[in-house]
C-alpha cells in the first residue's frame, strides 16, 4: 500500500478513480468501505484505492450530482452512508467508459508496435 508503487498508481488513478467508483456503483448502491473492497477484489488485488482519497472523491461526485447518497443501516447494524448512481451519473459513466476503451486500445496499439 505504501511506497513508490502506490504513488504511481494513485497518480494514474487520480483521473480514473471517479470512473472506477461510478462503475462499481453501476451494479447497485454501496457504502464507501464496500466500494474500496470491491475495486480491490475486482482488479484481482492489483488496484488498491487509497482510502483517505476515496471519501473526498465520493463527496466531490455527489456535489457534482453524479451520485446521490442516503443513510442506511449496514449488514452489521451500523449507521452507514450509501451511495448510488444518479441518471446523470449513468450517462457520465457511459461516456467515460467509451472514452476509456478508446484510450486504452490506442495505448495498447502504441505499446505493441515495437
Amino acid at each position: 500500500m505504501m511506497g513508490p508503487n502506490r504513488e504511481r498508481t494513485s497518480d494514474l488513478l487520480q483521473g480514473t478513480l471517479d470512473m472506477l467508483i461510478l462503475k462499481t456503483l453501476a451494479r447497485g448502491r454501496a457504502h464507501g468501505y464496500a466500494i474500496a473492497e470491491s475495486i480491490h477484489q475486482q482488479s484481482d488485488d492489483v488496484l488498491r484505492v487509497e482510502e483517505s482519497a476515496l471519501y473526498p472523491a465520493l463527496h466531490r461526485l455527489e456535489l457534482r450530482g453524479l451520485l446521490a447518497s442516503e443513510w442506511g443501516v449496514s449488514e452489521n447494524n451500523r449507521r452507514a452512508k450509501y451511495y448510488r448512481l444518479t441518471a446523470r451519473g449513468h450517462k457520465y459513466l457511459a461516456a467515460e467508459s467509451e472514452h476509456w476503451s478508446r484510450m486504452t486500445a490506442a495505448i495498447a496499439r502504441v505499446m505493441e508496435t515495437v
Partner: protein
Amino acid sequence: MLPESINGLWLRIKALFRRRQLDRDLDDELAFHLAMREQKLAESGVTAEEAPHAARRQFGNATRAKEANRELWTFPFAETLWQDIRYGVRMLRKSPGFTIVAIVTLALGIGANTAIFSMVEAVLLRPLPYPHGSQLVEVSRYSDVFDFGNQPVSLPDLADVRKQCPSFERLAPRNYEIADMTGHGLPEQLWAVEVPPDFFPLLGVAPLYGRTFLPSEAQPGHDDVVILGAAVWRKYFDADPHVIGRSIQLNGASYTIIGVMPPQLTFSIGANLWIPLVPTPAQSTDRGDNAYFVLGRLAPGSTIAQARAELNTIAARLARAFPKADKGLGFRVRSMKSDRVRDASTPLLILFGAVGLVLLIACANVGNLYLVRSFSRTHELAIRAALGATRGRLVRQLLIEGLLLALAGGAAGLLLAAWAMDGLRSLVLLNTPRLEHLTIDAHVLWFTLGASLAAGIVFSLVPAFLVSRDRLVAAVREAGSGHEVSSAGPRRSRLRQLLVVGEVALALVLVVAAGLMLRSFARLSAVPLGFRPDRVLTMEIDFRPHQFKTQVQFLAYSRGVLEKVRAVPGVESASASLVNPLTGGFSEITFGVEGRPQPSNGQGFKAGVSDATPGYFRTLGIPILAGRGFNESDLAGSPRVVIVNRAFARRFFGSESAIGQHISSHGGWAEIVGEVGNVRDSNLSRPPGPLIYFPYNQRGSWWMTVLVRTKIEPMALAQAVKDRIWSIDKDVPITQVRTMDRVVAAANAEPRSQSLLLSLFGALGLGLALVGIYGVISYSVGCRTREIGIRIALGAQDADVLRLVVGQGAGLVLAGVAIGLAASFAATRLMRGLLYGVSTTDPFTFAGVSILVVLAGLAACYIPARRAMRVDPVTALKCE
C-alpha cells in the same frame, strides 16, 4: 457543467444550515469505514489491540480526509473570513480604549468629509433636473468698459441672435416682475416670471397639472393666464389638483390658472408663478432695453465654444450697426449649471480639500495607533504564524480589523454628518445656490462607504506591510527571552515618526488656510462701512403703477408714509431711498460733465445711482463732507440738484471742489450741491465707486425703501411702523423688514461661514496631530523607561530628561512645520479669490501659525516628558 455546479452549490447551501449534522455525518462515515476495516483485520488474525492501529494505518491521514471532505461541503473562504471577522470584533472589544479612540477619530474625519461632500454633490455634481440639461445655457451681455457682471439682453438683439446663430436650437427670453397677489389673506408679493410659450418646451419640462402657454396666449388681450409654481401652489392653494380654471388677482387684474409646474423648476429665490411674456412694440424694437434674461438650448452636437464664437461675430456686427445701444457690449454664454453655481465652486472645493486633509491626518493617527497595537500583538500573531497561519491570513486579519474600525467610524461619521446637516443648511453658506437640495442621498452614502474603506485600507496596510513570518518567528523567540520591546525595531519607530511629521505638515497647511481666512474676515469686518448700521430699521414697500395714477400722487403717498412713521414713539428720524447699501442693488447711469469732453470710447461717464429723501444721510449716519443734504424744496419743477460721494468727487474733479459743478443726465443739467462720504454699496470687499444721489422727491420712482433710526432696539418698533404704513393703505406689501445690522451681517455671511468652517477643520486637524505627537512620544518614553532610569541613576537631572524627551518630539514637529510651510506656499494660492486684504503668503499668518504649531507640539511632548522625569530609577531597573 453549469447545472452540476448549481447542484453542488445547492447542496452546500443546504449543508450550511445543518452544520452540526454535517460534521456528525462526516465523522460517522469515516468511523464506519474504520470499524469495518478493523472487523476484517480481526477476522484475518490481527489481535484486538492491534486492529484499530492497523486500520488507521491503512486508511492514511483520517483527519486530513475529513478536513478535505468538510471543505468540499462548505465555503472555506467565506467561513474563514467570517471567523476572522468574529475574531477581529473580539480583539477590538478586548481593547476598548484603542477602539473608541480610533472610531472617534475616524468618525470626525469621515463625518466632516461626508458633510462637505454632500454640499459638493448638491451644488456642483448633481445634474440640472431637466432632460439633456447640459445643453441648456444662459446668454447674457457684458460691458467691456466696466465690469458690472452679467447683464440682460434686449429683445431685438435676441431676435438677431436667433436668426444668425445656428448653434442654438431654441432661445427664450424671460423677465421678472413683482406680482402682488391679493384675495388670499395678507397681500403677498411673488415673483412673476414672464416667459414666451416655447419656454417650457425648451426646458423639456411638462406641467404637473394642466398645460403650458399656447402661442395665442402670447398675444395682447389673451394673456390673462397664469401657471403656478409648485411652492405657490402648495402654500396658497393647499396643493389642490383641481385648481386649474380658478382665477386669481395679480396686480389688481384677474388671471386664470391653466397649469401647475413641478417643484424642480426653480427660477427665483422663493415662490414664483409664470405668466406669458407679451412685449409691447417698443420693447420689441428698443435695442437699449437690455431687460431680458435669456435661456438657450444648444442644437444637438453644438458646443458652448461654437455658440460663443458665433455670438462674438454677432456682437461685433451689432456694435457696428447700432453703436448707440450695442457698442462696447459683448455676449456671454455659460452653461445653465455653471450659471446657477456661480462662484460657489471655489470655496466649496477648498473646503473639500481641507476636510480631505483632516481625513488624511485622522488616518495617519489611527494608522499610528494601529501600528503600536500590532507591536503589542506581535506575540499573538507569531503564535498564529507558528500554528500554520500564512502571511496572507495574518495580513487579512489586520486588514479586516482595520476595515471593521473604518466602517464603524464611517457609520458614526454618517450620523455626525446627518446631525450637522441642518446646521450647515441654515448657518453656513447662506448664499450658496442649489443648497436647498442638500440631503444625504445615495451618492453621499457611496462616498462615505468609499471613504471609509479607503481610510481602512490605508491605515491597516501600514502594520500589515511590516508583518513577515520570519520576523514573527524571531519575535516569539525574543518574547521567550523577555525582550519584547526590541521587536518594535527601528524600522517601525521610523515609520511612526514619519507619520507624525506628515500629520504636523498637513495640520500646518490647514491652520495656515484657516488663519488666512480669519485674517481676511477680520479685515472685511473692519472695513469702514461709511454709515452707522446700529439702531436702524429698514423695510421695503413695493407699489405697482396701477396703484397711483401720477408720480405726484405717489410722492404725496410716500411723504405721508414718512410723516406717519416719524410720529411713532421711539423713532428718531425716518427717510426713504431706492435701495440699501451693501445689497448690490444700485443701478448705473451714463452722464456728462460740464466743460469736459466725453471719454473717447463714446460711452460717456458712468456711475452708480441712488435716490435719497431729505434727512437720508442723517438717518444712515453718512457724513456730509461739503455743501448740503437734500431738503424739502428739492421737488419736481425746482432746480435740479444732485449730491455725489467722495469717490465721485475725487474721480472727476480731483482736488477741485465738486460743489457747484454741473452734470448732465436724464436729458438735463443738474448742479452738485453736496459731497458725502463713501459707503460700501454692493458688498464689503468691493471698494466704493463713484455714486450720484438724486433727490427722491425730484427724480420720481415707484419704489420705496424705508429707513428708520430709532431710539430703542429697532425690531421692537417694526410692528408699530408697519401698522402706521398700513393705516394709509392696507393693501401694500411690506417686505424685507430687518435691521441694518442684519444687512451688514448678511453681506458678511459667506466669508464668515467659510472662515468658521476652515477654522473648525484647522482646529480638528491640529488637535489630531497633537494627539499623534503625544502618542508617539509617550510610547517612546514607555519603551525607554529602563534607559531613562539608568540615566537618572547616573545623575541625569530633570532638565536633562526633559531635553531628551522633548528634543525628540521637537525634531519631529520642526520637520513637520518645515514641510508644511512649503506645502502651504503651494496650496494657499488656490485661495486667492476668497481672501480680502490679505496676501496668500501673508508672512504674519505663516509665522504666527508656525509658532502656534511648534508651541502646541512641544506642549504635547511635555506631558510624557514629565512622566519620564518622575521615573524612579530603582523601580525602572527592577521591573525587567
